[in-house]
């Protein structure tokens, strides 16, 4: 399965993938021909650049994002969204993996995440250490593709919820105990 290779460059970079091409892939990934791609099937189809299985938590996050009726998988229509999502992440990852190591190290991560530090959200050096510590399943001190996606998903969700409470946008929130639990418990 070749998500990670440049096996066929799309003709126009921003054109949506050809339906026939997508259907081909869908059929190959949907091994039990159930008409929906499950977590397991998607996991088997994806590569993180190592010989270890793609992060199951990331797989779950992605399927959940596109599975509109909670069936625990994605049908062909939903799969188009999954495909684009993963392709976009691949492009981002390749952009920031400047030394082409297949991993994003702390320096590259800092550049990739500058969007999160905008306005008054200043980020300490320790911040990046914590992220890598939390998401780097390969234990290399750098993040592989699947862990990078998971890191960004969680960071985005936490940032979104933080922003909702930071009404004056000064980078500080004040919350009650119950608000705090409700904010974070389902994200991390």
């Amino acid at each position, binding site marked *: 399965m070749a998500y990670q290779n440049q096996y066929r460059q799309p003709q126009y970079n921003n054109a949506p993938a050809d339906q026939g091409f997508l259907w081909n892939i869908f059929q190959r990934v949907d091994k039990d021909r159930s008409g929906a791609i499950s977590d397991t099937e998607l996991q088997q189809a994806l590569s993180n650049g190592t010989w270890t299985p793609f992060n199951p938590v990331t797989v779950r996050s992605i399927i959940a994002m596109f599975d509109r009726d909670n069936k625990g998988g994605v049908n062909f229509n939903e799969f188009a969204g999954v495909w684009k999502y993963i392709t976009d992440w691949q492009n981002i990852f390749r952009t920031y993996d400047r030394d082409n190591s297949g991993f994003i190290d702390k320096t590259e991560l800092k550049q990739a995440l500058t969007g999160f530090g905008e306005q*008054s*959200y*200043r*980020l*300490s050096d*320790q*911040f990046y250490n*914590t*992220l890598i*510590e*939390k998401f780097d399943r390969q234990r290399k001190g750098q993040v592989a593709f699947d862990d990078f996606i998971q890191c960004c998903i*969680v*960071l985005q969700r*936490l*940032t979104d919820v*933080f922003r909702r409470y*930071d009404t004056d946008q000064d*980078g*500080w*929130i*004040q*919350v*009650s*105990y*119950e608000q*705090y*639990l*409700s904010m*974070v*418990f*389902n*994200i*991390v």
Partner: protein
Amino acid sequence: MSYPGYAGGYGGAPPGAPGYAGFPGQQQDPLFGYFSGVAGQDGQISAEELQTCLTQAQFSGGYKPFNLETCRLMINMLDRDMSCTMGFNEFKELWSVLNGWKQHFMSIDRDHSGTVDPQEMQQAMASMGYRLSPQAMNCVVKRYSTHGKITFDDYVACCVRLRSLTDLFRRRDQAGQGVASFQYDDFIQCTMSS
């Protein structure tokens, strides 16, 4: 402001409780037997050793032994020195906290099936004093259930997580008012590392 899980029933030893170092009775403490059996020279146990320890002490009783990830969460919950290991004092604290949770779980799991349903899980959380929003509660139930049921292991993982987050929040609530302030960087970091 009294935080759930710290007074009476489901809490562990109150903060500042005297340690057991040098206490003459320590050697006879049956828990110490289990502990030192796995701990080795440094008197610390890792997540794997904790799993062994709890299994040998037959903590889970009729329930399945804890999975490794839950043991990691338990170590993390009490890991004050960030060593990813646990000493005997923490182990004793963990034991007493776990027992409280186990009693509570058993009181809900009336048919001794080793699982509870989502409704019962919600009631369990509420009766422990946790008041989460309905959406948060839904997410909790979804995340910790397998085939619509919550096992003892998952229930414990959930309690551990709640306790870690509560600890974290308490440390920032200096005035004990049930309110805390977070800067963005700090918010992300401490939430990620809980």
